[in-house]
């Protein structure tokens, strides 16, 4: 399998890349000191504020996450909004 992936240029999900991704996620939460509960509460409030102004297409598709940056970490919110035609 690994050989075939390499041949086709596919990036294999090895345990070390999983380790690195898990670490980056846990560290950004450690550093920003945001618990999963706080994160969920914030997500709900962001949705409430945004939906006062625009129509959110699919509340399930909303992605709020913390990302690690060089100088500082980032809070990224990806919120799909519904197109409207007049």
């Amino acid at each position: 399998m690994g050989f075939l992936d390499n041949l086709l240029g596919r990036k294999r999900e090895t345990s070390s890349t999983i380790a690195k991704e898990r670490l980056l996620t846990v560290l950004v939460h450690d550093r920003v000191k945001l618990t999963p509960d706080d994160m969920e509460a914030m997500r709900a409030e962001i949705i409430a504020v945004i939906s006062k102004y625009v129509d959110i297409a699919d509340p399930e598709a909303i992605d709020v996450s913390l990302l690690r940056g060089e100088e500082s970490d980032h809070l990224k919110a990806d919120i799909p909004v519904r197109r409207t035609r007049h």
Partner: protein
Amino acid sequence: MARVITITSGKGGVGKTTTTANLGTALAMQGQRVVAVDADIGLRNLDVVMGLENRIVYDLVDVVEGRCRLRQALIKDKRFPELFLLPAAQTRDKDAVSPDDMIELCNNLRREFDFVLVDSPAGIEGGFRNAIAGADEVLIVTTPEVSAVRDADRIVGLVEAFEKGHPRLILNRIRPQMVNRGEMMSKEDVVEILAIDLIGVVPDDEVIVTSTNRGEVAVMQKGSQAGRAYNDIARRLLGEDVPMLVLTEDQTFLEKFFGAIGLRPRRAAR
């Protein structure tokens, strides 16, 4: 000008004590006057790793509480004229010593030595705070595992909060074959995550176990990859520009090649 260097990690069992013993010995072998201080009060271990456990009379707490003079508590390593150990107390706990006590102790040791290496206990509580109190520099030891790297990240933050400058990283117990297979984080991965300078990478080496069994250290064993790595770190501490060891697998390409044509290169002969 003496340097006080604390070796710490956050997580236990990643090789702080082994690192302290090896760096202390390597520095002494290069003519530096070195004292290794065991700051893990109550869980004394640096003495057995250095093979000096039978010679302890007084310990660090005896010095701090004035039961003996500093020089009486220092154990001279007979194999290396420039190497000394200040052992931890075994029957007390971390509260027997305060950060101010440690600063005073380190300052007294500065007068006698070129290097004061302080072996920190695991954790982020009082014992760790004592261990870094007198430090000029901090070395953080980690292994390429998620738990150890997470704890190391916490320690980086604390060391910076205590204004001990930028700590440097020792990545311990790397297994090159696993890294090549993508089954272990590489030094590049760990350095990227922790964002601190790397001072050395130490391979996982059976010699650490066998030499510690005997109360010796890896830098005394010729042909040991871990010993070589610790020697290189000692030279980097002395300001030499030593290239990072390219870690070989159990067999290097050349060894495989020579093996295939029936020759045995010298490393395979040990």
